[in-house]
């Protein structure tokens, strides 16, 4: 990307012409909604954590799709960063969940209401 040219301008071919941006965005939105609903309805901390991962990846899909749509690497680069951070965060979050479990012998999020004003 030495010059300010997009991939399309450099003559790159479109990969799957039948699958449009709208498809990707639909998948992304669906995943995000599933994640959100799961997060709001479930009480198990691990499940809730998985739901946040789901929402995370939904955003990643949208980013990659837009990057491809605009023929710009920035989207994919960003997603790689997201994946890295998500891995680290997953390690920490699971460790936290283990610690919380040790305190109360349960995984229910309702057990933790210390922040009540």
């Amino acid at each position: 990307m030495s010059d300010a040219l997009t991939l399309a301008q450099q003559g790159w071919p479109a990969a799957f012409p039948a699958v449009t941006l709208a498809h990707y965005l639909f998948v992304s939105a669906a995943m995000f909604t599933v994640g959100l609903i799961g997060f709001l309805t479930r009480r198990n901390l691990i499940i809730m954590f998985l739901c946040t991962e789901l929402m995370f990846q939904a955003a990643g899909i949208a980013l990659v799709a837009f990057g491809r749509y605009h023929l710009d690497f920035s989207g994919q680069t960003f997603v790689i960063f997201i994946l890295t951070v998500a891995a680290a965060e997953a390690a920490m979050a699971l460790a936290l969940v283990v610690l919380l479990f040790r305190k109360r012998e349960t995984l229910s999020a309702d057990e933790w209401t210390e922040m009540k004003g």
Partner: protein
Amino acid sequence: MLHQALHLLPTLAAAPPAHADSGAAATPGGQLLMLVPALCVLAALFSALSGPLKIRSKIPGYFSVACLAGAFVAVLLTYLGHESGVKIAHGFEWITFKWGDGPGQALTGNFAFYVDSLTLLWMLFVTGLGALIALYSVEYMADDVGLGYARYFFAFNIFVLSMSCLVMADNLLLLFLGWEGVGLCSYLLIGYFYKKPVAVAAAKKAFIVNRIGDLGLVLGLLATFVAFGTLGYDPLFAMIRAGVDAKGAPIADSWVTDVIPLLLMAGAFGKSAQVFFYVWLPDAMEGPTPVSALIHAATMVTAGVFLIARMYPLYAADDDHMALSLVAWCGAITALWSATIGMSIFDIKRVMGYSTISQLGYMFAGLGLLAPTGAAFHTLTHAFFKATLFLAVGAVMHGFGGQLDLRRLSGVARMRGFGIVGLAMLVGSLNLSGVPGTAGFFSKDMILAQGFSTPASMIEAPQAIAWVLLLTAGLTAYYTFRAFFRVFTGPVEYLPGDDEHLLEHGRHPKGTTLAEWHKQHGHGHGHDHAHTELTGVAARRAHGRKDFDPTTEEFDPHPPGWAINASLVICALLAIAAAALYFVKTPHAEEGGWVGGMIERSSAAFHSPHEFNLLGITSHSAMYLVSALVGLTGIAVAAFLHAPKGWQGLFLGSRDTAATSRADALTPRLGRVARWARAKWYVDELYDWFLVKPLRGIAYVSSWIDKLLVDGLVDAAGALPARVGRVLRPSQSGVLHGYAAGMAGGVALVLLLVLIVLN
């Protein structure tokens, strides 16, 4: 800067100096006197450190005595090498505020000493008595060996240090620092028994009353600086001698010689307990007795006399001597006023306290009556005989568990071990009463005689002042010997005081009368011979012992040991010897003997005018007779009213118990006068009503304004966020899903808004 100021004065060179000696320019010298503050600091540091170092012995006391004696020797050597004129011993540059190069644009206060004969006169008795009374304290404070001992001697040494700075300072700024230093030490030592609420209140009272006077002193210093552009004595006296201020304007009839002396007088009256300010000194008797002797009788309270004597050129420069008239009248009135109180109260230590106020009144009257020599001589003799009296009273207090009521002690001088105390008390009393031949007689005479010979054109009604003083002399003789006859002569009777040591061991019969106590314990009146034989051994055994058994042992008087006796003897001998000073011939002065010579060579020199001369009788020779007669009459009245039968009471008395005397029959006939005098004329109550209570009322109102208005605003500022928080608090449910739903809802809301806006 100062020299420039002087060069600006064309009249200065022309004006001849008033006195050849005091007019001479100051030369460097007298560096030996730097040893005095150095030794005091050394002793103070050692005393202070002996506390943390857990030195539980009398070593700090003896060390202080040694250091103070060394200081005295340094002063004595300087005196012996001092001929005349002024020497300035320069220590170091200390305080300099400079805001320009012109005259009067820099305020300097160097640590330097102004050594002339007035300084040396004061320093001789300050350091001499300081060492003696430190020796006395070594034994007197023996019960407090340890931390209290360290605290006591620290404050004691710092006092001598501050007093030396006050007296030797070569500028008013250093004098002021010393002045505040002695005030602080006085506060610390009055409040020495800090567990006694009375002592703490007395310390505060002394400190606060002194601050009011000090306001005058500070303003006086500022006015001096405004008028003369300097606070150093040397340039100051040069200008005053020339009769001009820093601008060259004559001062004789300007505000300078009216306002500054009056302001300085206010400071002097505060420190020396005169007129409105005297109330602190009787209360200061709550301190340990050696402190009362040194600070509140011999030295610190004479600082006011010293200040006026030091600034005498300025006082004398006034053409109508307004300030001096006021000083004289205030002194005379105070002398009479406090003598009447001293006549009627029963606490012998407070009698001495009021007598000190009265005698200080004499000194001020002497200064005001244009007799600085008489005032200085009386200061000197008073220092010795009043210290003797206090030390003797202290020995009685020490021996009888703090008993001071003259109705509960009798015949003390006849008890074993108290002979020296009785003799010392007699010497002091004779001096204070002005019996012919004593030092007190000659010094009092100088002031009285001057009162009758000062022309009324110079001072307001000097004869009236002299009559007041003469009356006071009679009253003084009466109350002095009242205390002496009641406590030291007559049948041996005693009731111990309420010293903490006695109360702790249940040996103090609190609430009992003298008669009950005697019945209970079967000794005292009538049984004294059997008892006095015991005192020597038993008292020494009982004294200071914690395991004292009250059931098997009773209270025994504790006769003074060698340190108290030695310092008493020396003090009494000095009080006697001071009379000889009157007859020392010096080439420097016509009258006043040695002290006259000292004053004549100092800045306080003043050729007192003599007008009175009737058929070759000068006022002095007349006064010898009159004041002797008045003094002896006072003693005779005291003997008649209070003395026991027989030779002890000069064959005039009739008292045979401690508690009552002929005076008791006489007192009711005086009616209210006696009652009011005994209540100290209700001055403390008056101050309480007209000063303390209104001030407390204002403080009360202010505190409520502070609480309601100021604190209210601040509290409101704090309460507002708290209230808001209380309203918003329920939104924090603590439930994770609630937060999540909130976030999701928020995001949805924002998206909705964006959509609406975009469409």
